[in-house]
């Protein structure tokens, strides 16, 4: 009897096709990724918009008299002795208010920076301004928002003069 091995071709072709399909499937499934809610940074963007808007609204003078003296709610808070309580009350009142939207629980830690007079480049460490009830533990993903204000304060051990100060707030959602 003559052994015919002409049909082995079919087997080999079958194997080859199967191998091609499986390797493509493997490569494709590994290449596309599933985006989680955090990866898209949409929440970060919403929080950052919220924070900058709140600081802008606090830092805008209310009428032309306040504008002429470069005064605003934020400046009055920074120049007051009980600035941490005032800042917390005003900021949380703004940030947690909402009309028809969802209620939110936003926490924050606020600091401000000013320049040392006798040196042009060294920045002193952050002066604490205020914080909400919870402090930063490291598990949150806070967003940083800043606002410039012109105030007339000593700011640490410096002299009292008109100075430009940067208020920084770290915001996160519980």
């Amino acid at each position: 009897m003559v052994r015919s091995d002409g049909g082995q071709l079919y087997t080999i072709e079958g194997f080859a096709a199967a191998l091609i399909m499986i390797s493509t499937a493997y490569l494709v499934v590994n290449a596309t990724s599933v985006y989680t809610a955090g990866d898209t940074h949409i929440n970060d963007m919403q929080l950052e918009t919220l924070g900058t808007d709140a600081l802008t609204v606090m830092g805008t003078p209310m009428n032309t008299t306040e504008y002429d003296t470069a005064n605003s709610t934020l400046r009055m808070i920074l120049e007051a002795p009980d600035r941490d309580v005032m800042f917390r009350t005003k900021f949380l009142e703004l940030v947690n208010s909402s009309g028809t939207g969802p209620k939110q629980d936003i926490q924050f830690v606020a600091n401000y920076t000013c320049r040392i007079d006798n040196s042009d480049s060294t920045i002193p460490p952050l002066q604490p301004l205020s914080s909400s009830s919870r402090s930063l533990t490291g598990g949150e993903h806070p967003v940083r928002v800043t606002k410039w204000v012109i105030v007339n304060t000593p700011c640490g051990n410096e002299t009292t003069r008109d100075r430009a100060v940067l208020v920084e707030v770290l915001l996160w959602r519980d």
Partner: protein
Amino acid sequence: MARLNDDAQWIVLMGFLVSFSFFFLALVINQATVVGQTTAESVIEFPKNDIRDVRSIIIRTESDTIQKDVYAISLGRKNAVVYYTFPFTPCYGKYSCTQIHFKSGVTEYDENWTSP
């Protein structure tokens, strides 16, 4: 030599067809998932509020100590180089102008501001 038997090539061709269509599908799906993400990231990345903020302080500057404050704190805390001319130079008759320059490494902004 006898002609090679290529009757079974259609199996491999089918295999290729499936692979290519699978690949194409995955490509299309990949583009769709980034729609929301790139909007949010580009919003965060462009320093619109930083520029507006610094500009509003520069316009109200009244001393060169404030100018030094702005330069130093921008560089130290915001990682941005800010430069502007102070005192404002007189221009167009009774107005005063200043050249504002802001560079954050990714974004650069230049403006010639005229006081109203």
